[in-house]
């Protein structure tokens, strides 16, 4: 017993030394063809739109059932979001909800007819202090310096802690392989944007892929002027002007999450 333990420790020690050599060996090994060339550089596209904190202002006065539906359709199309019949497995990035569901706790006993039946677009609020970012055990959900709460689908382990943490129901889980429910003909896909795989969570990304090439989010473009997108930290931005001159509400501000999506009512 004693002997074998000792020899085990010896082997373990030698292996440890061996492993600690790898960096040294790597240096010798890598001094090949490209050894003397500089490190590669990575940079942001020059056309990319930049902000301190992106935000969205939704003018509900300009909304109609059709527009809200179009927002969802546009988003689904460019992000390859499948239409799933089974409500339990649905994937939604931006969609319409009745006022009482979009703003639970804010519904008045006597709400004006328009508000009562209006379909409110709801989406990820890209919170200033996002609970989903806080709870993610792998940093698969993280906050970018420009305020966007983004998902790294490569890293998501599908624990769904973020779904429990989100007070806005903005997150969807791929209960099945989304490719099995996307249109058969790939001509109907957006070939420039990936699909997702089963077992990962997803949500609105504020069109990070479009901002990177200088375009505003697709829903803003499709909104017929009802949605305004801009820098909340820039007093001269369009969104700040709208916020200055209109009364706005946010979803569940009392939770302290700091939503970046405002609604003009």
């Amino acid at each position, binding site marked *: 017993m004693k002997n074998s333990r000792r020899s085990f420790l010896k082997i373990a020690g030698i292996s440890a030394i061996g492993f600690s050599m790898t960096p040294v060996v790597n240096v010798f090994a890598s001094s*090949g*063809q*490209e050894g003397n*060339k*500089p490190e*590669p*550089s*990575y*940079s*942001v*596209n020059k056309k*990319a739109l930049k902000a301190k904190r992106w935000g969205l202002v939704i003018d509900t006065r300009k909304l109609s059932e059709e527009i809200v539906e179009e927002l969802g359709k546009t988003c689904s199309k460019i992000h390859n979001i499948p239409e799933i019949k089974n409500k339990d497995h649905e994937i939604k990035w931006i969609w319409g909800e009745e006022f009482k569901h979009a703003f639970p706790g804010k519904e008045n006993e006597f709400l004006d007819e328009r508000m009562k039946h209006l379909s409110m677009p709801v989406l990820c609020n890209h919170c200033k202090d996002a609970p989903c970012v806080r709870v993610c055990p792998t940093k698969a959900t*993280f906050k*970018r310096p*420009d305020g966007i709460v*983004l998902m*790294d*689908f*490569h890293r998501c382990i599908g624990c769904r802690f973020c779904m429990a943490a989100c007070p806005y129901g903005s997150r969807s889980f791929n209960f099945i*392989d989304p*490719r099995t429910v996307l249109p*058969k*003909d*790939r*001509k109907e*896909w957006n*070939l*420039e944007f*990936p*699909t*997702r*795989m089963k077992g990962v969570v997803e949500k609105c990304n504020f069109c*990070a892929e479009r901002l*990177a090439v200088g375009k505003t989010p697709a829903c803003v473009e499709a909104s017929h002027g009802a949605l305004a997108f801009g820098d909340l930290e820039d007093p001269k931005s369009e969104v700040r002007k709208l916020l200055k001159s209109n009364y706005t509400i946010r979803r569940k501000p009392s939770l302290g999450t700091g939503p970046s999506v405002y609604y003009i009512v």
Partner: protein
Amino acid sequence: MNDKLKVIAGLIVFFAIFSYPFWNNIFNKENPEHKPVLSAEAEKAKECVRSKDYMTKEHMQLLDIWRDKVVRSGERVYKYGNGKEYNMSLSNTCLGCHTSKAEFCDRCHDYASVKPYCWDCHIDPKENK
């Protein structure tokens, strides 16, 4: 110990099963074609984002860095050596030049029995099932 024979017989059987893949490869001379085939576009371009040698050995590390840079830092432009700028995109840049995933990626991956899950999400624009 009178179990000697049993133990040895057991070891032989175990070893035979364990080393089966090696035997199979030695006696089964059929060696499938596994070298990637360069597309016309790639041949014309002559160069990749890095040297051929580097790409052969390290493309997986390069792609790993790319995905982290693009997704997590929002940096999408790659520059190295020859000063050319590349948009770091598997579906659009890599497959834009290596137009056939089947002939370029799959041949070698299949041979080496590597199953990268890139294509669970990233789309091969040519593929249409």
